[in-house]
């Protein structure tokens, strides 16, 4: 498939009339913005909140362009840089530009991404900017009720964006299908819309994943793909429950509410621990618990004594949950990268295994020895002396991909290949010559 821009970008609304749903919230936002024409309103900031994929970012962009405001957009990492902040503050206190546009809007996107402890400075900086600002400020968040937002909440007009309903999402999906030339069964689109649970972004992503490059879209096409997202959705919910659990009992009960099996949940926890627990003390304590759970799993595997399972689950749920010392904060959970990595590197690992097997056989060592001791050594030789490397590669009958496993560097691999093919040409010439004289053995090095 060719490189393609995400459909969520390609079909992001540019005009207000293209925005679906949330009419009431949109009107509220426009009213507030218009009130600036009559002087600075009581609330200088809006906190736009709602679940992911309800169009917070899109709405701010569209409104700014519709009403001809210049948008200054910042995310959590910008706010941590103080130089950046100073620039904003200067802009914030200056009055709107004189060149056609009405002025500026400062937009802080995804403020959930700022953690309460580390970025406390950042959040209070935002409050400070709101205090001195003479231009409208909009913030976007998933969960505005987090205690760390209290000050900001008090200073802002809260506007809620709701999940989109099924028909609204279907309307967007079928418009995209039309533009992409896909004949879609309405039932298939309905299925995608239902699975998205009001998250338009995920619905569009799903549609692209399933339908891009096709002419037709059926219910069957959709079913296979969506079951996975459903499990992921479940994992998000379960992790959130686990990491915000207040008691050991609450944490323990979580596994029974999940359709994930315990070893999959284990991988999810492992992946997301460092994102959830930023304090080294918390992180270490949680990993201690997880490592103990893992020891139990090892014992179960060895002894087949499944009565140990409940202890393992205690450690990975309650043990991990009680490590928390700071209030829960929102985290965008990630799919376990280990699983992705293993499937993505399958081909490379198979090749490496082949290389090891070949070396092992040639020099009478185990494949493990070949992997741990010989490949690093060959890498040294290949990279620092491609000429000798080429001879070794030839002797071991390594192809391009295998040489690359050793060098880890395409450029050196190419160089070695050039030398090997040169060696082969010379050899052929030699053997032609020597066939007239007496045969000689090839001389290495």
């Amino acid at each position, binding site marked *: 498939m060719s490189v393609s821009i995400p459909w969520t970008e390609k079909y992001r609304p540019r005009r207000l009339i293209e925005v679906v749903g949330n009419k009431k919230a949109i009107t509220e936002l426009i009213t507030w913005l218009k009130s600036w024409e009559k002087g600075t309103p009581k609330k200088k900031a809006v906190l736009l909140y709602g679940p992911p994929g309800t169009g917070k970012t899109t709405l701010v962009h569209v409104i700014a362009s519709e009403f001809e405001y210049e948008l200054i957009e910042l995310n959590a990492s910008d706010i941590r840089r103080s130089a950046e902040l100073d620039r904003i503050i200067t802009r914030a206190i200056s009055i709107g530009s004189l060149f056609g546009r009405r002025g500026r809007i400062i937009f802080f996107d995804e403020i959930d991404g700022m953690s309460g402890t580390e970025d406390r400075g950042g959040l209070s900086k935002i409050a400070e900017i709101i205090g001195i600002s003479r231009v409208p400020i909009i913030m976007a968040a998933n969960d505005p009720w987090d205690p760390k937002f209290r000050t900001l909440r008090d200073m802002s007009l809260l506007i809620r964006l709701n999940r989109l309903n099924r028909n609204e999402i279907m309307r967007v999906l079928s418009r995209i299908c039309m533009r992409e030339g896909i004949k879609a069964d309405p039932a298939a689109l309905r299925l995608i819309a239902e699975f998205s649970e009001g998250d338009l972004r995920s619905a569009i992503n799903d549609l692209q994943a399933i339908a891009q490059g096709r002419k037709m879209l059926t219910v069957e096409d959709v079913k296979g793909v969506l079951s996975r997202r459903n499990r992921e959705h479940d994992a998000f919910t379960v992790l959130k429950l686990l990491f915000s659990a207040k008691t050991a009992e609450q944490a323990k009960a979580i596994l029974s509410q999940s359709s994930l099996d315990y070893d999959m949940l284990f991988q999810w926890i492992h992946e997301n621990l460092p994102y959830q627990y930023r304090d080294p003390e918390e992180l270490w304590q*949680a990993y201690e618990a*997880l490592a103990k759970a893992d*020891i139990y799993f090892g014992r179960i595997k060895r002894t087949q004594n499944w009565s140990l399972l409940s202890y393992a689950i205690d450690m990975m749920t309650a043990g991990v949950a009680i490590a928390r010392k700071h209030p829960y904060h929102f985290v965008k959970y990630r799919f376990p990268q280990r699983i992705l990595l293993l499937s993505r590197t399958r081909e490379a690992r198979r090749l490496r295994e082949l290389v090891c097997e070949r070396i092992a056989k040639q020099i009478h060592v185990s494949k493990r020895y070949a*992997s741990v*001791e010989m490949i690093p050594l060959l890498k040294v030789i290949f990279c620092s002396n491609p000429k000798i490397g080429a001879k070794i590669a030839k002797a071991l009958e390594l192809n391009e991909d295998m040489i690359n496993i050793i060098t880890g560097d395409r450029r050196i691999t190419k160089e070695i290949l050039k030398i090997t093919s040169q060696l082969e040409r010379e050899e052929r010439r030699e053997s032609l010559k020597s066939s007239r004289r007496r045969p000689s053995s090839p001389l*290495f090095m």
Partner: protein
Amino acid sequence: MSEILWAEKYRPKTLDEIIDQEDVVRRLKQFVRERNVPHLLFAGPPGTGKTTAALALARDLYGRNWRNSVLELNASDERGIQTIRERVKEYARTVSLSEIPFKLIILDEADNMTSDAQQALRRIMELYTATARFCLIANYPSKIIEPIQSRCAFFRFRPLNKEDVFSRLRYIAEKEEVKVTEDGLEAIWEVAAGDMRRAINTLQAAAALGTVTAETVFKAVGMAKPKEITEMLSLALKGDFIGARERLRRLMISYGLSGVDIVRQIHREIFGTRSGLNLPEDIKVELADLVGEIDYRIVEGADDEIQLSAFLAKLVLIGKRMRTGRTK
């Protein structure tokens, strides 16, 4: 053909060519003269000539077509009971075609066989003694079950001494027209000690960089070591757990290192004078204790990535402690 790797090219081919391990060689030659061999157990540290002696014995015994009468297996790669049952049994039961009435089965790294596989092997050794003799090779003979040990003639291989390693390295260097300095040899000894295979491998790697000096030896050794180990440790100490875990995954998945390999390299790194981690003495000891615990857990059957992640989390904590100046 494979003669391009020096450790293989300069491996002694016959028992006569083996200069060390005099006792072992004398006894093995006796077997060749008698044209009869008992089951053998070769034990000793890596690189002391166990595999070389087994292959040389096979050549001396069977002559040019020795490969037809020898099965060579590496037990760490095929350690399960299945291989023992199928491949070994199949090979052991068929009659030898050479003048020698039995075949030789070389089981390298036999101490890595599971105990089930060893039990199966014991039965096969009994049943097929008439048609097959075994040569088991092990680093740690105590990991071979008692009944097998008692069926074998035991041979202990000792680490090579410095003079023998040096003279072999000088001989190879001369043949390969490579210049070697005295401090180069000393550096190789520091890296490999009495492990001849590692010594020769190190010589060849350093020679790829030019004259073999202490500098080229340590440079080659440094290049061979994955840089991710040091990176992982220093990232964790700086507080970047996610970066450290990413290195860990690279080591395990791209480099194919096992958890135990990584644990041992970490251990070397903690105490290594060349590592550049600059840890306070008390922290070194604390970490060594921790690494030992992780090693034990992994060998016991725990998951390497989880256990090593827990270790990294502890490092993050220690790093924070070091920065804030608290020692405990």
